[in-house]
């Protein structure tokens, strides 16, 4: 909701100060004279980008692992045990089946690990559970090699708090999602929006665990969000 008089009064004043009449349409974003963002890791192969990502993970205090499809169960199980994960919340992602996660979660349950998928039917209970959870597991939609960033399009099956409230964030990164930097991700979002696809209510670009340098400029890893993070790059089938 918006009061149009309120808006007109405000925007007319801006136009007046700019010394011209109000622009309500016809402004076209110019072609920028320089585009250095497209030169970063230009022409890198997918494997070279994986190497860039691995290097950056050291900078952002994130454990990096790489596996092929066949060994995902072993690597993920080892990761969860390494983080002492007894209570786990995971995105209800369509790829859970494709990546064999459904059966992995089932086998963990037999070992008394409480794994639950985000369930929109139980409302705020999801948050209560996520708050208790040791680990939240998500998939990256677009992975930015330069900054070690995973991109989540949060929605009703993939709540915002899965990657936020638990102590540890574990992200599964399909190798094909890796791009040089934020530039490629933003173009995708821009183009999808231009084609009339509504952008997700929350786009989360996440680079490792939370941190702060607010006390004497000393880095504290783990503030309000997760204290630890592990990325698992999975080679495509």
């Amino acid at each position: 909701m918006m009061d149009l008089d309120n808006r007109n009064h405000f925007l007319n004043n801006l136009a007046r100060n700019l010394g011209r009449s109000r622009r309500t349409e016809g402004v076209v974003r110019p072609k920028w004279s320089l585009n250095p963002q497209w030169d970063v890791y230009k022409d890198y192969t997918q494997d070279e980008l994986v190497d860039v990502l691995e290097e950056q993970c050291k900078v952002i205090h994130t454990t990096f692992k790489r596996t092929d499809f066949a060994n995902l169960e072993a690597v993920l199980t080892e990761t969860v045990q390494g983080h002492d994960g007894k209570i786990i919340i995971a995105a209800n992602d369509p790829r859970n089946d494709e990546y064999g996660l459904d059966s992995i979660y089932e086998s963990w349950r037999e070992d008394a690990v409480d794994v639950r998928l985000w369930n929109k039917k139980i409302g705020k209970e999801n948050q209560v559970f996520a708050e208790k959870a040791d680990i939240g597991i998500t998939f990256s939609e677009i992975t930015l090699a330069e900054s070690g960033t995973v991109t989540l399009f949060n929605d009703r099956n993939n709540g915002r708090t899965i990657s936020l409230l638990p102590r540890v964030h574990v992200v599964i990164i399909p190798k094909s999602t890796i791009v040089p930097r934020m530039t490629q991700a933003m173009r995708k979002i821009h183009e999808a929006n231009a084609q009339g696809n509504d952008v997700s209510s929350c786009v989360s670009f996440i680079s490792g665990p939370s941190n702060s340098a607010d006390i004497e400029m000393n880095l504290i890893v783990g503030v309000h969000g997760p204290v630890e993070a592990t990325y698992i790059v999975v080679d495509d089938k």
Partner: protein
Amino acid sequence: MGIRIGNPSFDKRVHEGIENEFMIESVSSAQGRFRSRKAAASEELGNWEDWRALGEEIRTHTLENIDFYLQQLSDNVVKRGGHVFFAETAEEANAYVQNVVKKKNAKKIVKSKSMVTEEIGLNKAIEEAGAEVVETDLGEWILQLDGDVPSHIVTPALHLNRDQIKETFMEKRGYDKSNTPEELGLFARQELRKDFLSADIGITGCNFAVAESGAVTFVTNEGNARLATALPDTQITVMGLERIVPTWEELDVLVSLLTRAAVGQKLTSYITSITGTRLAGEIDGPEEFHLVIVDNGRSKILGTEFQSALHCIRCAACINVCPVYRHIGGHAYGSIYPGPIGAVLTPLLDGYENHKELPYASTLCAACTEACPVKIPLHEHLIRHREIIVENGMAPTAEKAAMNGFVKWSTHPAAYKMSAKFARTALKPWTKDETITNGPGPLKNWTEQRDFPAPGRQTFRSWFKEREKGGGSK
């Protein structure tokens, strides 16, 4: 709180800063770290100047068409179920937020760090509306517990040390652990988690809104802006009218410039873009979303020679290189916006009257202009401010007296000659080994911080005369 902070006297604030040894030390070490990180992050790209030029081009175009982009933004926010309010003054913005607080019958509000809400004094307004407001950024929370004000726009508690912070936690929250940043941080995490889980409203600032789709973006490391927008059912985002980009593609460029220039990170831990309310079936995120777009003096800058000051993306790179900030610290500026950008912006937003000394809190070395990731000519703006101040007869008294005195003195050759000749003799009682360490009168402020060279044995004029005659020392 509003834009003005601290003692109304600039001189007193400067002295408080200069005398605070811990603060000076921490500021100078922080500056060093910020600068080397930024240098590494910008050199690594190899073409930082191209990035800056692109940043400037984007900001210039956006501000020139700001009415169009704000219209597009507000249409898109409304399309996604949000409410938009345009506030011309701080009072209007605060009244709107108070109204939401009352309507929601809110008791507790969690807030993530935001300069514009400091600027308009929002916390006080919320408390007046009967709700508790909790700052959740670690630095801001420390300041809030302590009743203190920010001294830097990126790390607001830069002037405090770990022992002072420990004391505050003990006194205000019964903390009983060590002074290590890790334990202090963990304590804040535990305390604030309770607040996040029980808050009725989350309030944020906004680094950049995206006009083409109605998103608001937060650039953070701690995760508090994410919690403040994921858990409460109502979200209020307050943005300065200039904090907008045309599309997601420009968001990329400006976020990249911001994180590198501010802290030397390729990206911060969290870049979060929220669009409107939560969608059907979603649990996290607000069911009610308010975007408050604030003018509060910004529109007066549009169309003037200072328009580029509105290009600022609040990275603090200019603050981190400023030699004056290094010596006097953030509080001395008397504004929540310190450093070079503060000295440019504060008189524009709040008038010259209370801030006429700020443009003089600069050596005009231009390090700020060089550091700015969107190429704002900061030191040129400072010079222009000085011209305006002098032209309007508002110059600080010392400057006025000095200028008047200088005019009288320098237009009387005999007086000039005499005083130049006798300067050495006159200052002799304070001179030791050709330096003055504890000077009288106007020299006092200078020599408290550093030595002043004693006047030479020979005046320039007599040296010149002798040189013309073919003699004289070099």
